[in-house]
């Protein structure tokens, strides 16, 4: 109950058991208020507005950029690019960095537990540039098998990118990137490292210095902020090497009839008017997480994880997909109930106002590995969930079993 009271959606949906935070998080009142305040007190376009209101709007917008930089321990706020979402951030890097530097035969290393947003953009480059994609396999314990990668006999000079999710949106596995990236970098010295932090960032500390990565992508809406807003962080030197994707307002230095020159980062990647209120809301979301202290968040969620792991995998006829060890784990639980299709199970759970996601969760590659072509039921928790929510889920699972006689 400690955190639930901060989230107004639960006041308006008293019986709801929301177990779909890996899809999107609910928003605390402070974020809703920040967006509301922006429109009721401070709304103006930013950049070059020479009046008080515009200055206030700009301070809020650029203030969030600074908060994001501090939150992930970036060198400078100019390394923070606002995009539409994680997918857009990864696509920007694909189109404006790797499409330029990759050559035929180069190798991009990803994993079998990637979200489609970290597979499909590379498949396009594979078609276009004839590069190779190596998938780090998922072990029987639902972890990444980094040893397999190290022993795969890849031409180490050709590995130009290692692009991995920090945590799986299906299995809940947190990949031990802080330990493994230095090893991978010494084995593959030409490789850049991109981290998809969309799932991890609302749950654990994400620090680009400790991660030793070159690019980091995440979304506001999964970390209690407004939707429609993502972040790309990259090292300044890499951002300098990247051309802008969209051209027009806000992103130029000078324009003549025949030629335009571009501003530096971040402006050159943010053509047109941005998502002002969402950025301001993200600032409030970061303040909120900081006020809780991410370590307390992790401690609380670990309790939920331990409890769920002590119950869910033990239910008869439940196939559980994920590590049974609470170490290196998010409170994200994928499972199936007997031969019941996940969509049918989800519909029954909804009768008890239990909101779960059912299907392939944008991870068709992983579903094949799990031998689960219809996908899974996924219950993903956050700080506003309680032990009681897990008990209700278990009751719901038992109801599914009863109806389907499984």
């Amino acid at each position: 109950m400690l955190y639930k009271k901060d989230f107004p959606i639960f006041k308006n949906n008293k019986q709801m058991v929301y177990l779909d935070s890996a899809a999107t998080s609910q928003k605390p009142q402070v974020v809703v208020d920040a967006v509301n305040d922006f429109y009721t007190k401070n709304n103006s376009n930013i950049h070059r507005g020479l009046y008080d209101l515009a200055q206030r709007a700009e301070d809020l917008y650029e203030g969030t950029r600074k908060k994001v930089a501090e939150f992930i321990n970036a060198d400078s706020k100019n390394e923070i690019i606002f995009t539409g979402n994680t997918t857009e951030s990864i696509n920007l890097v694909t189109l404006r960095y790797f499409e330029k530097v990759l050559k035929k035969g180069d190798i991009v290393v990803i994993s079998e537990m990637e979200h489609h947003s970290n597979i499909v953009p590379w498949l396009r480059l594979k078609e276009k540039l004839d590069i190779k994609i190596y998938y780090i396999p998922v072990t029987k314990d639902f972890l990444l098998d980094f040893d397999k990668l190290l022993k795969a006999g890849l031409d180490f000079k050709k590995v130009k990118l290692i692009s991995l999710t920090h945590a799986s949106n299906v299995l809940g596995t947190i990949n031990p990137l802080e330990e493994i990236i230095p090893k991978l970098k010494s084995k593959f010295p030409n490789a850049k490292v991109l981290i998809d932090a969309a799932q991890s960032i609302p749950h654990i500390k994400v620090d680009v210095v400790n991660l030793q990565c070159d690019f980091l992508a995440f979304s506001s809406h999964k970390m209690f902020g407004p939707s429609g807003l993502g972040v790309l962080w990259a090292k300044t030197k890499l951002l300098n090497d990247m051309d802008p994707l969209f051209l027009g307002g806000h992103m130029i230095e000078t324009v003549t009839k025949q030629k335009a020159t571009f501003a530096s980062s971040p402006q050159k990647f943010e053509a047109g008017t941005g998502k002002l209120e969402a950025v301001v809301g993200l600032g409030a979301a970061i303040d909120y997480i900081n006020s809780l202290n991410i370590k307390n968040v992790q401690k609380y969620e670990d309790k939920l994880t331990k409890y769920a792991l002590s119950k869910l995998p033990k239910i008869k006829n439940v196939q559980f997909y994920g590590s049974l060890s609470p170490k290196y784990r998010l409170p994200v639980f994928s499972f199936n109930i007997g031969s019941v299709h996940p969509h049918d199970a989800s519909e029954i759970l909804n009768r008890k106002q239990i909101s779960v996601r059912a299907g392939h969760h944008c991870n068709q590659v992983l579903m094949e590995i799990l031998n689960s072509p219809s996908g899974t039921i996924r219950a993903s928790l956050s700080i506003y969930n309680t032990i009681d929510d897990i008990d209700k889920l278990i009751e719901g699972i038992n109801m599914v079993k009863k109806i389907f006689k499984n």
Partner: protein
Amino acid sequence: MEDPLYREIILEHWQNPQNYGTIKSPDFKIEGSNPTCGDKITITVKIGAGKISDIKFTSEGCAISKASASLLTEKVKGMKLKDVRKLTEISALKALPIEITPARHNCALLMFRTIKEKL
């Protein structure tokens, strides 16, 4: 315990679907899929005297899609092709013994849409 959607008749057709399988030398074979949920269906049909003389299907999907395919193959089996062509999605949904919520229309209509496309 009986659920309004997963009534006994739906569960019966889910577990023991009618016309399930493949016709050996069909007049045509069609495949359909529902990318939003990954449901897949393969339908084989035998035509005789302007009628669907035999129809079988195999599918991967939820209970609603499998049971609806079972029930709707029962409905169209023996029907004249011209009458099948006249069937609308609304009439197909009405032919099912349960009310299908809009979120599950794609599941319930997978078989119907697949065969309509061919005819």
